[in-house]
Structures are given as C-alpha cells and as structure tokens.
C-alpha cells in the first residue's frame, strides 16, 4: 500500500515537471529580443580552428524579425550554424519545457541557469542550457546539443546594461579534422576520397565583434 502511494507520488511529480510552464525569465528575454524589429551591423571575424589558417574577415550582418540572419561579405567567410538566433525563434518553433537549475557563477557574476528540453521530435536540438542575466533579461551563454550538427557553445558580451544585442560573441563548436594526403594540392591533384582520413573531433572557436549597430526597435 505504502509502495503504491510512493509510486503515485513519483508519477505525479514527473507529470508536474513535464507540465511546468516555460521559464518566466526566458519569456522576458524573448520579449526583449522581439522588441528588436531589425538591425544591421558590421562584424569582424577571427577563426581559431587548429587545422585552419584564415585572416581576419569583415562582413555585415542584417536581421529582420521573423527571418534568418543574413551575412554579406566580399571575402569568403565561415558562418557558424548556431549562435545567431537572437530572437530565440529556434527554441520557440516547437514545444519545449524548461528546467530551472538554480544559480550559476560565470565570469564572476551569478546568472540563472536553465535547461530547455524539446517536447517535439521535430526540434533539431536535443537539449540547450542557458545562462540568463535576470537583471537585464538577456542570455550570456548558451550550450546547444544539436541532433545532427554537434554541440555549440555561444558566449556573449554586452557593452552596456541596456544593450539587447551583444558587442562581441564567441562561438565554440566541434569539428572533424580531416587528414588529406600531402600531395593532394601539390603536383598531383587527383582526388582519392578513400585516402582522406578523419583525425577525430577538434574544438574550434569563432570570435565575432559587432560594430556600428543600426537597430530598429518596435
């Protein structure tokens, strides 16, 4: 009898957890970001991947609410697949639950730590962890484990307390290093895909600095 009651309590607890509402602070962050109708900015990009040498790149970024972020550059640039979802659209596209993990210290300051777990199989991420600045309602760090594109960690720094958009951003990601035969781009440019070996996962980073923001708020 006692055991059945415990099982019932555990079941009720689980259901309660599943039925919990989306974190209120996350909704406030979303509301703040939704107030940004559009913006344009210049970006300076530096790539730090062990097997890539790339000079500092310049590009422009433009965002229109409800649309994906667009980049424009005269040069070739690598754009991380995650990190530019300023309005958190990707999380809110499918149902999810949030789990409050309490307070976590990050770079000498305390932030609210939450997990986002999608309820729908259609979501392309498995879990996300966010550090929310509950004073200024913005995200300072997010870790997203995607289903197909590996894990991404995005760190954001802001110029002022009122700023909704970051002044700089670091995107960390996992990338497979390939070992290409040495003569691949030498005299013998024949391509033999069988000779190409993967060298395991490496962590890479892209540093972005935003400048000359032109923001249109609602």
């Amino acid at each position: 009898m006692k055991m059945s009651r415990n099982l019932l309590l555990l079941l009720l607890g689980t259901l309660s957890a599943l039925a919990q509402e989306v974190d209120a602070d996350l909704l406030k962050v979303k509301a703040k970001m939704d107030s940004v109708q559009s913006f344009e900015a210049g970006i300076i990009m530096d790539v730090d991947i062990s097997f890539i040498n790339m000079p500092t790149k310049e590009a422009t970024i433009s965002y229109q609410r409800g649309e994906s972020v667009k980049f424009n550059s005269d040069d070739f640039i690598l754009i991380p697949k995650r990190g530019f979802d300023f309005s958190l659209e990707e999380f809110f596209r499918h149902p999810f639950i949030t789990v409050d993990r309490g307070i976590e210290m990050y770079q000498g300051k305390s932030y609210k730590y939450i997990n986002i777990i999608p309820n729908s199989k259609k979501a392309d991420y498995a879990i996300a962890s966010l550090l929310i600045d509950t004073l200024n309602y913005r995200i300072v760090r997010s870790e997203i484990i995607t289903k197909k594109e590996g894990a991404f960690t995005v760190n954001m720094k802001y110029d002022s307390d009122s700023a909704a958009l970051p002044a700089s951003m670091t995107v960390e990601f996992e990338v497979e290093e390939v070992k290409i035969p040495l003569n691949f781009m030498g005299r013998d440019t024949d391509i033999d895909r069988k000779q190409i070996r993967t060298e395991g996962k490496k962590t890479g980073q892209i540093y972005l600095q935003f400048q000359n923001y032109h923001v249109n708020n609602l």
Partner: protein
Amino acid sequence: MIKALLWAEAYKLMKQSRTWYAIAAVFVLELIVLISAYYRGAAVIDILLNNLKESFYFEGDLLNGNLLIYLILNSLWFNFPLILMLVISGMITDEYKDGTLQTVMLQPVQKKWFILSKYIVATVFTVLMVLVLALSAFLFSYLIFGKSDLIVFIGKLNFFNAVEAETRLILAFLNGCISMIFFSLASLTFGVIFRDTLKTWIVSVLFLIVSNLLLKFDFKWELINKLFYAKLNDTWQYFFQYEIPWNIILRNNLLLVGYIVGFSAIGVVIFNKKDIG
C-alpha cells in the same frame, strides 16, 4: 660579337616553326587545364570543406580565378617544361642535324661565345614563355571566373584574401621561372652531349620524369632532401604556406641557380672540347 650572336640565336629560335607550335601548345594546354580545373575545383573545394559543412554555412565563392590559377600552376609544371625542353634542345641539335654548325664555325666566331649565346637566349625565351603563361592564366581566369579568396591545403587549410592570393600567385610564377630555366638549360646541355635530336628528346623527357618522381621520393638523408636538385623544383609551393618561409625559398633558389650554372658550365665545356664534325 656576343650581341650579334644573341640576335642571331633569337632570330633562329623565332624563325623555327617548332617554337610557334610550342607557344600554341601552351595556350591549348592552358585552356584544357583551365576547363578541367574549373570542374575539378568544385570537387577540391567540396573535399576541403566537407568536414566544416556540419558546423558552418559558407558565404563567398572559392571557385574563382585565384583557385583556377593555382590549379593551372599545379598542372602545368610538368607539361610546360616538357614543351620548353623540346624547343630549347632543338636550338643545338638542329645545328648538328642541318650541318649549320660547321658553317657558323667557319666564321670568326668563338665556340665559347656561340654556345653561351644559346644558353642566354634559351633563358630569355623561357622567362618570356613563363610570362606569357602567367599573363594568359591571370587574364583568362580573372575575366571568366572573377577574383576572390584562395583556399589551399598544405598541411592545414590556408585561406588567403584575393589581394594576398594574387601576390602569392605572381611570386609562385616568378619562382617557377627558375625551375623552368633549369629544365630548359639542362635540355640544351643534353643537346650538346647527345647531338641527335631524338636521343636528346628521349633523354630530356626521361630526365623530367625522373626529376618529378624524385621530387616525391623521401630520401633517407635529410641533407639530400634539402640539397638535391629534384627537391628544389616545387619551391614555388612554399608561397602558399601561411607564413612564407623566405629563408627556405632563398636557399632553394640559390641552390637551383647553382645547379643551372653547373649544368650550363658542363654544356659549355663539352661543346668547347668536342670537335664540331
């Protein structure tokens, strides 16, 4: 006297139909390589960036004139010296075959200056041919495919912006000149030694093939890997390392110039010592 000999040699070289066939062959080859590079370029980029697709979107076109010029450089450094060697060796073997050497030697011409003028004209012709090759490669590639960043794999994926890529490609062509001069003058020396056109062509082609094979051969002794002539002929590739190793490039080029002088000296000495008949 040397001035007259130089003009005479230049005139004879440009009068040969073989020379113009060679120039035409270079353009045909370049066109074929350009077309093949365009199709191969897409596959090259696909392989190089395949592992990055998971994490990144790409903005900008890497299949542009700079990549095509780089692929042309890679493809032509075997075919191009072959054409040069066939033309240059003919400068001396034709003289033996046609018997014009005896006629010239009946004039008050020193053998030493006669053969030296051939080496000098062969050098100038080679440089001009590389310039023609470079100019046409840049012209066709940029006109048709535009100019943007260059991606090269040398140990790492190296990206260069368009201006940097262009500078490095020009430097690679200039550096390639030294290798081309080496093969051209080597073939002239073979012509002096073997006299017969066909034999000289066979030896020259064999020399080029062996040199290319030895370029990839890893010798047990590092000193040989550093000093052996065959290892110096792809020095131009160093211009596509992210940090250009100027010391290695300078050392390799000085060594190659030494080999050029050595090969030429052998040719001059043998020509001086041998009877004309």
